[in-house]
């Protein structure tokens, strides 16, 4: 329970910080970065949070499930004859992003490995 309490606290801290500084980053992501820093500086001990964090992360897909159910309202915004075009654009552009990102990351990883040979 201590772990969950800490995670909820950081989520709330993310919301507060976003509001005070009007940051354009999502509150959850701010909370995550704050939490990572706190682990880093030893303010939060890993063993306090590991149990709760492992459980929540392992079942993260459950927490996205209602969002996916929500996609059934797509037809309210897109006419039926345009659905195929939307599906095509979604799939094709997602694949393009995956490949572009993956290729660049792969290329740079190889260059880094060459720069400091033996370092993995």
């Amino acid at each position, binding site marked *: 329970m201590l772990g969950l309490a800490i995670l909820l606290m950081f989520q709330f801290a993310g919301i507060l910080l976003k509001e005070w500084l009007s940051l354009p980053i999502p509150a959850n992501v701010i909370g995550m970065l704050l939490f990572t820093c706190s682990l880093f500086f030893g303010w939060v001990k890993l063993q306090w949070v590991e149990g709760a964090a492992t459980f929540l992360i392992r079942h993260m897909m459950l927490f996205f*499930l209602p969002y996916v159910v929500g996609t059934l309202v797509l037809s309210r915004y897109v006419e039926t004859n345009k659905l195929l*075009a939307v599906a095509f*654009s979604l799939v094709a552009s997602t694949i393009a992003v995956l490949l572009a990102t993956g290729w660049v990351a792969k290329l740079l990883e190889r260059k880094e490995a060459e720069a400091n040979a033996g370092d993995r």
Partner: protein
Amino acid sequence: MPAIADWIQGPEWAVAVTVAAYAAALLLRNKFKWMHPLFTGAAAVILFLTFTDISYEDYRIGGDLILFMLGPATVALGVPLYKHSQRLRRHIPGILAGVMAGSVVSIAGAWLLASVSGLSTAILYSMIPKSVTAAVSVPLSEQLGGIPELTAVLTVLTGLIGSMFGPMVLKLFGIRRDLAIGVAVGTASHGIGTARLVNDSEWQASVSALSMSLSCIITPIFILPLYWLI
């Protein structure tokens, strides 16, 4: 029939149905590895709503309770980030370059494909920010002149596509390294992609979590020039 409507107004049934659908989807995944729990689980809930003729708005009362847990779950991604921080630091240039490339292709690609497919400008603008997490993509779409509700749906679908097929597509094109898979899936399909990698490898998930965070900062910057163009 007010007697029937009473329980529908509460969150309990929707929470129970969603968790049950997810648990069943996990069992199915154990039998058939290719079945994505998020897809099968959501499909089961949608079928349930269709058969019982319950509206999505009624479902949301309970659905929102489950969505709330995304907050602490996202914060919890700090654990893999912390555990792999030494290794992540060494790969910052590659991760940063990958996210930047992905953001540019995401914006340009959505624009190009939506125009080629003959979609209206409102749909086009709703599609541009779809690779970044919903908390960022929805306000971006609003500023561009898109339909925020549509962007929310497109963002989730993009996440689902990347989450279901991302690692497979990458391997098909010879991208097999953990780092590249993590950066690509995190950049293309935000938290939903990251939620899948968690079950494959903790290192991939930590790269993905960092990439999706960087994308939240980089994508809005790259979208800025569009305001002068449109």
